[in-house]
């Protein structure tokens, strides 16, 4: 699974150093909250799409306003918006 950020996979920050294996891949996060939010978000996408894995996730936005995303699997694409509070998804909708 590729992402569009060089820093933390969720927020792109380069502060901190928190690694977590997600989908069999060791990923860099700034903190455990971003890792929780990312992991929960991926779970939600898989639930909604029925995909077993994702190829690519692109994120724009931030914690305050929520994040607009695009995920792909092969030729399929899924666009969505989500917000989290403390790593728990509080809003998730297809866009």
């Amino acid at each position, binding site marked *: 699974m590729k992402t569009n950020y060089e*820093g933390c996979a969720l*927020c792109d920050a380069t*502060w901190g150093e928190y690694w977590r294996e997600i989908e069999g891949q060791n990923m860099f996060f700034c903190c455990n909250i971003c890792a929780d939010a990312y992991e929960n978000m991926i779970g939600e996408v898989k639930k909604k799409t029925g995909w077993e894995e994702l190829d690519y996730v692109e994120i724009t936005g931030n914690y305050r306003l929520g994040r607009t995303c695009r995920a792909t699997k092969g030729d399929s694409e899924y666009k969505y918006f989500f917000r989290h509070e403390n790593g728990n998804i509080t*809003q998730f909708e297809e866009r």
Partner: protein
Amino acid sequence: MKCTVCNYNSSSMDYADLGGHFIDMASESDADHIMWLNRFITKSKTGRQDLANMLREFFELNESGLKRWIINRFVSNFFSEPPHLFIGAMQSPERKVLLGYVVEHHHFLKQWIKSCAYVIAKTDNEDVQMYEMENIMAEMHGFGSKTPSHHELLLRMGESLGLPRETVLMSEPLPATRKAIELWGNLSRNSHWIEIMAAMHSLELIATRGLEKYGAKYSYFDPAIFQRSDIPNEVKDFLREGYDADASHSDEALNLIEKYSDEYGDIQAIQATFIRSMVAFDSYLNARLERGEQYENEL
């Protein structure tokens, strides 16, 4: 210097010291400190001296003084483009938003009067004590049956929307509200009264009119709501009370803070405590929305 995130407080007046603290916390991947840096300073990992310079710039008062600094920070956090999500939702509020407002704000007000009481207990300045006494009366006690408290108007707003007051009174706050209330309780117990005032009364800026002159792109709600026939009078009464009262509340408090801040001396501590409270308040406003979503399905 005080940290804007935790209880760290050093006697050093050098921003390199505070910067060092943030770098230490970030290297431990501490979520709260990193989120604060991301949001207010920079997302890019920087060295201690560069971070010190950025922090100095963040706290810089310029000629306009402490009151103006607080207003500017508050306005850019809540009323810039795009606004805070709750402010966006209040421009033409749906029922669920107002329901969420009622429940979480009930918990907020219960803490509010305690914080005001701490200020009274910690100062001998009569103008400050009078201000806080008046505030407690207006928010929670009211002035006779013709002038109910803000809390009573809040409960009546809920009732007009089909939310029984017993449900509100027996509710538990959502996690973000609880966390904010704990912070306000702690800082009221442990901080100087002027920091408590800055932490609490700055929040009344949320409902203050006329912030456009400080760069606000939005107001708390669109006053056209007072003309709408589909909105219950109890909702209008609640919003009007804040609309009329909080304008003078926050202004008077900020004047008192500025008046006594030189005497207190530690301006950075006042700023840091205010920022910490503002960030908690920001999350608390999201809890109002979260509660609204819950109630939409239940009520």
